[in-house]
């Protein structure tokens, strides 16, 4: 197992131009500023008080970026929060009872789910971005996309307020497929507990992954967002994995060596890595490379000496930087991930996802490529 840091690519002096909006605020921004003002004076809104609600600090900067400018991350309610109890009510007693239960417990906020630390880290990055670029809309925009019924809406909103999350946009589709809405929001990443929805999103060209609740959760950084990716069938296509599965390890190595200078084709999460890189460059441009609140990792079973080279060359050709590339040459990923402590780790194989979870890493499954036919989950798959 070899750990290699890529040499920082020379960053061209970036001319950071002011955002397309310039200095004038859109009319909807004015309205929101007014609303906050009313809120401070305690006039307009009369939501029921929820225990433990803390006042949200209002700072300068853009709070409602246009979807096309922002990096939109859509999360479902079941990965953002823990809803196992309510799920059981739904499964055992049906939808009417489930909704009645939700309404009854409206003032009890849900506990954080597997995507919660990741979302909190996105907000930390946003705070730093707003400090440096107060006019820019190039921020993370977190949207709650759930096919929950709007009856659960008040409880979800109360929970968002309770945890001081900055989630201002949502879709509660009341049972119909959320996929159309993902496209309408120009979603860059979709996280859900439902593998079918995730597959649908992937088929539409949207980066997506299934998340699972783990009992063990290692502590993650509160100041730096860390995102780790598997290589094949996540950042890259599954073409090499196909060779390996069909013809074995030796043929795989031979193939990679023969094709060292041919770029790998892109995988479903390449676009998301690209979006992260774009935001990273904004920090570098302000001299904050060492202090950058975003860090990315490649954690691959490829080996540095041979098959890893093709991966690195491909990344470089794509103009994508990755902060740390870890070539495990087949060694288990769990221990390495435990050292890195990413907020999220993307892998196409359930075997690795479970291995990571066992060691307390939040891992998300990307159901893409040839591995789906060969690797079935060891434990029962995600419930609906």
């Amino acid at each position: 197992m070899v750990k290699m840091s890529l040499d920082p690519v020379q960053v061209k002096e970036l001319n950071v131009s002011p955002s397309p909006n310039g200095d004038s605020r859109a009319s909807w921004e004015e309205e929101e500023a007014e609303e906050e003002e009313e809120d401070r004076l305690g006039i307009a809104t009369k939501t029921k008080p929820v225990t433990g609600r803390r006042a949200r600090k209002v700072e300068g900067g853009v709070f409602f970026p246009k979807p096309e400018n922002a990096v939109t991350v859509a999360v479902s309610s079941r990965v953002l929060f823990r809803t196992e109890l309510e799920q059981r009510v739904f499964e055992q007693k049906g939808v009417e009872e489930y909704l009645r239960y939700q309404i009854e417990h409206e003032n009890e906020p849900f506990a954080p789910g597997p995507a919660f630390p990741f979302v909190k880290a996105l907000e930390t990055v946003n705070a730093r971005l707003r400090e440096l670029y107060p006019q820019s809309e190039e921020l993370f925009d977190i949207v709650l996309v759930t096919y929950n019924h709007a009856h659960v809406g008040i409880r979800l909103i109360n929970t968002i307020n309770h945890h001081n999350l900055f989630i201002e946009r949502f879709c509660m589709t009341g049972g119909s497929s959320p996929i159309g809405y993902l496209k309408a929001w120009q979603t860059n990443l979709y996280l859900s507990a439902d593998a079918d929805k995730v597959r649908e999103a992937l088929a539409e060209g949207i980066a997506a992954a299934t998340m699972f609740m783990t009992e063990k959760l290692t502590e993650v950084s509160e100041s730096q967002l860390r995102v780790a990716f598997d290589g094949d069938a996540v950042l890259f296509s599954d073409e090499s994995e196909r060779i390996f599965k069909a013809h074995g390890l030796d043929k795989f190595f031979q193939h990679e060596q023969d094709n060292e200078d041919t770029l790998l084709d892109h995988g479903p999460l390449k676009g998301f890595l690209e979006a992260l890189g774009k935001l990273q460059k904004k920090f570098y441009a302000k001299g904050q490379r060492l202090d950058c609140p975003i860090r990315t990792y490649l954690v691959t079973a490829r080996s540095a000496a041979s098959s890893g080279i093709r991966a690195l060359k491909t990344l470089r050709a794509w103009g994508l930087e990755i902060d740390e590339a870890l070539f495990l040459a087949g060694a288990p990923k769990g221990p390495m991930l435990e050292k890195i402590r990413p907020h999220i780790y993307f892998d196409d194989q359930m075997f690795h996802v479970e291995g990571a979870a066992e060691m307390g890493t939040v891992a998300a499954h990307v159901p893409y490529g040839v591995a789906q036919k060969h690797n079935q989950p060891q434990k029962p798959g995600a419930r609906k």
Partner: protein
Amino acid sequence: MVSTVQNTDVKQKDADRALVVAVTTRAVFDAAAGDVYGMGVAFPLLQSLQKVNERLLEKNPAESLLFDVVLIATDSQQQSSRIISSTSHYGLEVGRFCFSSREDLVETLVVNNVQLFLSTDRDEALQVSQKGVLSALLGRQEAPSESLRVMLCGDAIVRPDCDPVPASRGAAQSFSARLGEMRGRFGVSGSPLSIVLVTSSGGSKSCGVALQTLRSRGLSVDEAYCLAGAPRGPILSLLRPHFLLGDGVIDLED
């Protein structure tokens, strides 16, 4: 001159309890050659209203809270006899026909106790709502949908003083209360009537206030979308409402 003709093919609704919805004949029928008019933009809407009535009566044959559809013709180009015969041809559940003129439109609506006026003409709808009658533009429906989809704009609910048409605000509130009563007759799934809430500006807290306000008026919402300033167009084209309430009169193609 205004004349009202009752449709004898259809059982008349209870005048006190029914939800009277008026639609212009221009929206329902397309000019076509021959004795029978072609189907217009409002056809899917009428079919959905009809389906709601059927399901309500299935549950309770003595139900009096039903949609009562009135067709309003202000266009002298459309002949009254063809309107009536076309209605019969398609088996539309229309209670009454009103043959009026543009000048007498508002009076016709008031006299007939119309609680909601639907049109494809923006100016017409705006003019009516400014006189205190709740009015909305019809949405474009490419295919018949499973249920009647009513969209409510939450922004006017949260901040009524920003309501562009304050005159019809009272009418809007009482209509939504009756609609809520109707919606309450059905369960969560498989309802022939869906209530969709959209808030365009303001964050999730505003939407929460809208949900609670509507609930306190007796209207439970099925789907909720909080846009917080994101462009409305892409979401609206997915939601496919039959009509939109509570935003003055906006163009659904926006």
